[in-house]
């Protein structure tokens, strides 16, 4: 079966004038009306803006004008991506009511080609979590089973796309926050290379890790969005100027002779159903002519504490700006300026955000800096080098996206450390700033989706997208979110 992308399908129907952009948009708005109560994916909807844009697209079609690749496609943005004049809260009480005065560069670009924004989606507060449950709006639910989480932190985007309430969405990935919810909801999630996508207007959590990426139904969809959001932006000093090779037209690559690395450390402490699905995926790639190279990434064991130390240190600094004076929530309290700032922050930030700020402040404080921050920073270099060594032996790496399938609600609050540990397969990628993609590769005995992770060399998103596309074709799209794709 030739698996077509959701975006290409909608675009084709619009261009053939089988359906108008306004009709498509209304159908999505109706789906949100019907399903969002159960899924809690959207924290804000923007129907007026969406319909206004849709009508502009219909007028262009009527005039016979060409459309940009994502023009007229209804989509959503995670609530930490700034949208001018549209409330952007990071799902934190401290930013309730905050309306940005500028657009994030990615949204500026997509809005410029008439992407139809349906609304802003749920997330863990300030992207700190793996379940979406630290959101001040309550967590998003999994379209495959409402009793389970959609994953996190971009859980709202995954719930919206998997629930048929958006054709695609943009999330952000600091330690796995695009890939893990995509994995939990049977979708494709791409975390581009650090520096590939502008973060201007992405509200910062941990600046040396944060990256914006798409959650989509198929690899072809992810390629289309990747091509639209990878551009140089001088407003982000970490944006890398380079010649970009589009991924969308290069999906039919031959995998014969391609070397795929499998590190044994990624396959440890993985649920049996996940391990089985990943092994079956390896067999699929073998049948497509790829060569499987077994190797070792010994630094994976230190990746998690290194990540939490550095990410929390950066968060404690980045979140220092929330003082209640210039925007967002301000505690109504007597007392002087310092008391007001302390009250605002204590009432405005939720418990997980406060824990991470405290850990970050601790590892940066006098007497502890060398033992934690400095040591973690040196070990970060060791993780980067071990990936370099791996890529000398293979073209890309293959691993599970998460050791488990979607959690039932409430598990994260019961044991924060255990939840941190579920990020073991995704976090190392952010430490090294590499691109990685999650694609659906199976189901566990309860019917919950399992994600396969492909990790590439810096700026080689194209190879990952093509490999994911080939897997979808070879497996007849059996693991894709079929209801949504139809």
């Amino acid at each position, binding site marked *: 079966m030739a698996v077509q992308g959701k975006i290409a399908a909608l675009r084709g129907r619009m261009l053939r004038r089988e359906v108008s952009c306004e009709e498509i948009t209304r159908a999505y708005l109706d789906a949100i009306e019907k399903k969002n109560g159960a899924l809690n994916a959207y924290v804000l909807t923007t129907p007026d803006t969406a319909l206004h844009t849709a009508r502009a697209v219909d007028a262009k079609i009527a005039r016979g004008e060409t459309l940009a690749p994502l023009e007229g496609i209804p989509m959503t943005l995670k609530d930490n991506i700034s949208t001018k004049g549209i409330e952007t809260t990071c799902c934190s009480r401290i930013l309730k*009511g905050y*309306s940005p*005065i500028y657009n994030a560069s990615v949204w500026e670009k997509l809005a410029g080609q008439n992407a139809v924004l349906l609304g802003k989606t749920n997330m863990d507060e300030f992207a700190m979590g793996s379940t979406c449950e630290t959101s001040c709006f309550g967590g998003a639910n999994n379209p495959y089973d409402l009793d389970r989480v959609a994953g996190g932190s971009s859980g709202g985007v995954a719930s919206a796309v998997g629930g048929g309430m958006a054709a695609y969405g943009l999330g952000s990935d600091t330690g796995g926050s695009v890939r893990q919810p995509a994995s939990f909801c049977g979708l494709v999630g791409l975390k581009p*290379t*650090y*520096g590939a996508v502008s973060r201007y207007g992405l509200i910062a959590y941990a600046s*040396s890790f944060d990256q914006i990426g798409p959650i989509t139904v198929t690899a072809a969809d992810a390629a289309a969005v990747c091509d639209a959001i990878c551009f140089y932006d*001088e407003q982000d*000093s*970490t*944006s*890398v100027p380079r010649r970009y090779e589009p991924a969308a037209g290069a999906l039919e690559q031959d995998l014969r002779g391609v070397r795929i690395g499998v590190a044994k450390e990624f396959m440890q402490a993985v649920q049996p159903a996940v391990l089985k699905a990943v092994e079956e995926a390896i067999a699929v790639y073998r049948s497509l002519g790829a060569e499987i190279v077994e190797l070792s990434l010994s*630094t994976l*064991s*230190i990746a*998690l*504490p*290194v990540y*939490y*130390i550095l990410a929390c240190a950066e968060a404690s600094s980045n979140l*220092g700006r929330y*003082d209640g*004076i*210039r*925007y*967002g929530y301000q505690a109504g309290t007597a*007392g*002087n*300026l*310092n008391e*007001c700032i*302390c009250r605002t*922050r*204590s009432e405005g*930030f939720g418990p997980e955000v*406060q*824990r991470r*700020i*405290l*850990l*970050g*402040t*601790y*590892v940066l*404080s006098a007497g502890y800096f060398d033992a*934690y921050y400095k*040591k*973690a*920073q*040196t*070990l*970060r*270099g*060791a993780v*980067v*080098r071990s990936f370099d060594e791996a890529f000398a032996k293979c073209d890309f790496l293959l691993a599970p996206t998460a050791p488990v399938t979607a959690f039932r609600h409430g598990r994260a609050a019961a044991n*924060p*450390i255990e939840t*941190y540990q579920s990020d073991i397969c995704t976090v190392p990628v952010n430490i090294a*700033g590499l691109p990685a993609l999650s694609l659906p590769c199976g189901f566990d005995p309860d019917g919950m989706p399992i994600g396969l992770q492909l990790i590439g060399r810096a700026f080689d998103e194209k190879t990952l997208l093509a490999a994911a596309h080939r897997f979808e074709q070879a497996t007849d799209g059996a693991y894709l979110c079929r209801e949504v794709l139809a």
Partner: protein
Amino acid sequence: MITQEEIRKIAKLAKLYVSEEEIGSLTEDMARIIAFADTINAAADTQEPFDSIQSLQNALREDVVRPSYPQEEILRNVNGGEDGYFRTKQSREG
């Protein structure tokens, strides 16, 4: 093992209040999280420093004067501010 006193000191640095009811459970949580962070000590020290991801270069450019955001837009998030300023509490008593 981190003490309640240390947590209070860190919270003060981070400008967070910790109430008497919270301090016990927060100290326990933080002790577990710090014990988790301590697992990096199992790793051998490497002497090679690490200073950038993907060998990023500093982005330098000429200092060109450009228009900034209008004051009234910036103040919109505090209901327009007061006489073109943000209003804050007194920083000192009296």
